[in-house]
Every structure is written in structure tokens, then in C-alpha cells.
């Protein structure tokens, strides 16, 4: 069982500056070649005015704190037995090149079911205007017990 006293532990604020080519690289890696992600000339004729990030790019800008939680020396998760169990993203704004995203996250829950331990990370990502861009919730499962 992972110690439940870590529920509420916070990570961040974590700053992420969105690079134009990095956004495109992510969409390409996800096999998504639609022009609104890649073609500035096309995008300039839409309401967005510039290319936008694939929404799933939140995996990069909104889950950095989850990575910190997973290797947190206080919590000591058994990474060899860890799997990503579930993921949820909610989006409120599109992301464009040069946006500066600030992620703040926390350990939202710790519980066990059978011999599986669960730890849940929740984050909120805001842009340089303070607007909420994305909420993310990641559930990780540690098989056979989490604490070392």
C-alpha cells in the first residue's frame, strides 16, 4: 500500500514553452497530418489564424508533474511494476506556438484494489493569459503493491 499521507502533495508550477515544430512533431507521431496542425497558410484562413496543437499534446505539457510524482524519492513507487492505467483530458482552449503553459499538479488519490495499488495525478494547465487550457487526470497502477 502506498502511504496515503501523500494525497494532496503538489508538483509545480511547471513552465512549458510551446514550440511550433514540437507541436507538429507530436501530431506527426500520432499519424495526424491534418493541415490545421501543420500548415500555416491553411491555418491563416481559419478562425485560429495559426496552427494549433493536437489536443493530445497535453500528454506533453500537462503531465510533467506526473513524471515527477512517479520518481518522487519520498513516495518511492516501484517503477518496474508500474503501468499507466487510465487517462482523462478536458480541454478549454486551443494551444498555439509560443504559448507559455504553466502546469500545477497534485497527488489526487491513493487507493488499493486487490493486490493492485493505484495512485492518481491531477493537473491544471494555464496559458500566459491565465486561461485554463486543460485539466488532466492520470491513473497509475502498481502491480503487487506500490511502496518499497
Amino acid at each position, binding site marked *: 500500500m502506498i502511504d496515503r499521507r501523500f494525497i494532496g502533495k503538489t508538483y509545480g508550477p511547471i513552465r512549458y514553452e510551446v514550440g511550433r515544430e*514540437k507541436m507538429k*512533431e*507530436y501530431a*506527426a*507521431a*500520432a*499519424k*495526424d497530418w*491534418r493541415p*490545421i*496542425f501543420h500548415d500555416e497558410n*491553411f491555418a491563416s*484562413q*481559419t*478562425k*485560429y489564424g495559426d496552427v*494549433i496543437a*493536437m*489536443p*493530445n499534446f497535453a*500528454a*506533453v505539457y500537462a503531465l510533467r508533474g506526473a513524471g515527477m510524482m512517479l520518481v518522487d524519492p519520498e513516495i518511492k513507487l516501484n517503477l*518496474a511494476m508500474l*503501468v*499507466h*492505467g*487510465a*487517462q*482523462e*483530458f*478536458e*480541454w478549454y482552449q*486551443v494551444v498555439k506556438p509560443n504559448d507559455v503553459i504553466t502546469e500545477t499538479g497534485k497527488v489526487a488519490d491513493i487507493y488499493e484494489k486487490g493486490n493492485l495499488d493505484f495512485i492518481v495525478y491531477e493537473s491544471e494547465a494555464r496559458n500566459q493569459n491565465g486561461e485554463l487550457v486543460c485539466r488532466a*487526470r492520470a491513473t497509475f497502477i502498481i502491480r503487487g503493491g506500490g511502496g518499497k
Partner: protein
Amino acid sequence: MMELCSLKYDQVEVGQEIPSLEHVFDRMDAIVYAGASGDFNPIHVNPYFAKEVAMLPDVIAHGLFNMALLGKMVMDWIGDPGYLKKLSCQFRGMVIPGDKVIFRGRVREKLPENLVALDVWAEKEDGTVVLKDGEAVVYVPS
């Protein structure tokens, strides 16, 4: 102004299936995704580690890669990525090189304010579940 979404809220019917998406996972996909996402966990990119250390049949696809393809399927339907408001799923079956994964979605409910909720999931050809109990919420203009 060019519109990206050609769908109309009135045309959406509860129970309708949206066009599915198929992908045969290649080990290069995981290497490219690792670079793009920054997730270099060796179970996704190093066959020796995956087999000999992690005791897996081979390298496995990133869960978030599969989830990105799930998102692509929904965006292919709505046209405007900015109209994707929510996406969630559970990561279940492992995907190894050569596996064909089929991503599917079905309209579950029409919500107020032009929102539409869909059940979304992914499975292999033999029916093995890859992404389970997924939900997408999209905005569809009138």
C-alpha cells in the same frame, strides 16, 4: 473564414457509429512517439529490455500513443480539433509490433449547449480490448 467542421448538431443521432480508424503498430511508431512525447521508457523502444527485463512479448505501444489515435478518430469525424472538449479511456491490452488496432466510437448522448458524448474504445482484430470505457465529448455547431 474557412470552417473546419461540416457536421451539424441536428444531424447527429444517438447510437450512430462514427467512422472507425485502423492502425497496424510498427516498432518505429513507438520510437517516433518517444521522441515526440519525451517518454523513453525502454519497454516501448528497447526490445531487449522489453523481453528480458520486463518479461513482455516485445516492445509495446505507449498508451498515450493509442489514445492519440483515438483522439484522431474523433477529430476526423468533427473536423475541428478545437471542438474536442474531453477524452478519456482506460489502457488495457498491450499492443506489440504487427498488431492491428481498430479504434471505434458511437454517439451515446446529446447534451445541452450543442455538446455530444460518445463512447470510444479500441480493440484488436481478435476482439482483445486495447482501450476500454473511453469517453469523448465534442461540440457540434447548429
